[in-house]
């Protein structure tokens, strides 16, 4: 009897999960993204992981950071990244417009800030990116 009840509860929970997943359409990152938008989430997400002790937020933005680091010297102006990047195909090096101003600036602003937050002045993020 106990096992029957627990099985029923599990099935109910699964049913709720199934409904929730079914309600959402599959999503995909966009092919045209402002670099400042995708590159300026790291400070907040890193701090959230530190304070909540849930690594998933840091994991989420570290994947983006990894791409920035990997492609930094492959862009048409090595060292910088273009204003527009392709998040769908993870191509951060294709475009040819560069800026330190709007739509781009906070990407660079966040590099030292996140380094500070992680106290990693000697990390690859810190030295390579600078």
């Amino acid at each position, binding site marked *: 009897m106990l*096992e029957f009840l627990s099985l029923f509860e*599990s099935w109910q929970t699964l049913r709720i999960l199934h409904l929730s997943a079914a309600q959402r359409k599959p999503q*995909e990152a966009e092919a045209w993204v402002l670099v400042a938008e995708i590159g300026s*989430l790291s400070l907040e997400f890193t701090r959230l992981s530190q*304070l909540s002790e849930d690594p998933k937020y840091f994991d989420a933005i570290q994947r983006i950071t990894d791409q920035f680091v990997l492609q930094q010297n492959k862009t048409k102006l090595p060292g910088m990244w273009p204003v527009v990047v392709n*998040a769908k195909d*993870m191509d951060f090096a294709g475009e040819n417009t560069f800026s330190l101003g709007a739509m781009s600036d906070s990407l660079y602003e966040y590099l030292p800030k996140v380094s500070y937050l*992680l106290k990693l002045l000697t990390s690859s993020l810190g030295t390579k990116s600078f």
Partner: protein
Amino acid sequence: MPLPTRRWLFAGVLGAALVYTLFNFSTWRSIPTRTGLQSMKPISGSNPLAIPSHRPSDDGVFRWKDLQPQYPVVSMKALPSGRTVKIPKIQHDFKSKETPEAKEVREARLQAVKESFEHAWKGYKQHAWMKDEVSPISGGYRDTFGGWAATLVDSLDTLWIMGLRDDFDAAVAEVSKIDFSKSSEEELNVFETTIRYLGGFLAAYDLSGLRVLLDKAVELGEMLYVAFDTPNRMPMTRWKWKE
């Protein structure tokens, strides 16, 4: 013959003892346990890389963290550990070597900045309370960032730093009412939402230590996390969050 009989007797007793022991072992292990999701204990503390198993709440309240990801993360990257570096202080030390004249000038400027903020905050309270922004010329309001009181959340840290504690307390009292499951916006700007709301809650929490601010940050983080549910885990930046 006496010897074989004793040998058989000895074997028999040993055999019986063995069977008895094995029988006891098996009944001990087959104590019925509850099966299914309820027997999955959350992994906590010991392994920071373990993706915690989450038992969804069944109280009928919608929670972003209850959604099952379509493209779940297989191996979680952890916050870096190991040797950290002491970073020198970059802020200017105002207390040292300041002449009384210089102090007077500095404090006058500080006061001017504070008054400027107080003017803006008064306008927000009067014309756009709990809305995103004041429309300064018309005296109305606009909900340009999801309609969750963007100016209020974004200003929490400034209120604290400037010592406007009554206003800070009044603003924080409203924070728990913000409902991140509802918005009139069809498409969320993930970047704006992160820097204004998430940044706002976290900065205010870091300054004040008030638990409600961290709770709200986590609640918002759970929502924004769903924007990363894509095949390559890159986030949607202009996110159709209701779909």
